[in-house]
């Protein structure tokens, strides 16, 4: 029997849609933001297309939490609560994060559906995104009210928050590559062996609930 014969559903279709919306709107904002701000790319700003594209991206980005609640209320609630709830295994995991970063998951403390690193990542994305949205809205609608000084501060905070999100994206891509996690967002399924290695407590919960058998039978062959 092959060890990767079984697969587990990790992200439902609607969760994958929301992730795609977040990723595409973020990338649109990043690229059009760079065009607006970074000298070497400023020639692309001619004609004002990058400006309105940035605003289209902003509206899509702000729509992400609403879309998540509409498309998958349970998933949105779980994500929000799990991202800010840490147990002892999570703190132990954080203590040994360098080991995990270098590709060693075997002796890490057992983790739930989200490991502690993913929880921290999600919490940071939520908080930093809020800063981006607030400063972005201030620059879009409140320029006459907050004046030149206020607009400049909003721009600094907006840029630093975007820098933080970009660094989080680098980390996100890093772990996706190292732990071959892309299938979770393309097909929704991940190999059971990988799930047991990285999210032992989650797999145990699924087994206890009898959900693992259902998901195995639903997995594509």
């Amino acid at each position, binding site marked *: 029997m092959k*060890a990767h014969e079984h697969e587990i559903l990790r992200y439902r279709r609607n969760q994958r849609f929301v992730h795609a919306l977040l990723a595409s709107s973020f990338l649109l904002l990043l690229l059009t933001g760079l065009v607006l701000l970074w000298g070497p790319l400023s020639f692309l700003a001619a004609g004002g297309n990058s400006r309105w594209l940035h605003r289209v991206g902003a509206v899509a980005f702000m729509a992400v939490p609403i879309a998540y609640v509409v498309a998958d209320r349970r998933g949105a609630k779980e994500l929000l609560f799990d991202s800010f709830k840490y147990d002892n295994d999570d703190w132990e995991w954080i203590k040994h994060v360098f080991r995990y970063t270098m*590709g*060693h998951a075997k002796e890490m403390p057992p983790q739930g559906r989200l490991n502690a690193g993913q929880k921290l990542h999600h919490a940071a994305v939520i908080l930093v995104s809020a800063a981006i949205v607030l400063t972005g809205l201030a620059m879009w609608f409140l320029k006459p009210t907050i004046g030149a000084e206020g607009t400049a*501060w909003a*721009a600094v905070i907006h840029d630093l928050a975007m820098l933080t999100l970009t660094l989080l994206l*680098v980390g996100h891509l*890093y772990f996706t590559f*190292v732990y071959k996690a892309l299938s979770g967002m393309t097909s929704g399924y991940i190999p059971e062996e990988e799930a047991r*290695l990285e999210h032992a407590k989650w797999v145990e919960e699924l087994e206890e609930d009898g959900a693992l058998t259902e998901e195995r039978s639903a997995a594509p062959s």
Partner: protein
Amino acid sequence: MLVVTPDDPELFALPADPKPPIVAGVWQQAVQPLSVGVVAATALAAGVAALVARRNHLAEVRQLEAAATEETSYEGP
């Protein structure tokens, strides 16, 4: 923003000697170039580390697969 006035700016409720806020200079001179540098350096370091880490993880998975295969093919004494 560029404002061209036909007379003294004070007559149009504009400052006589406008200066950009200091924070705008800090933003353009420090925050922006620093951001590009930090992202580039992080991406480069992550790219190199990812190759090592992925190799470590694949070796770990191969070990687990071998152990699982051994376990299933073992038929007992």
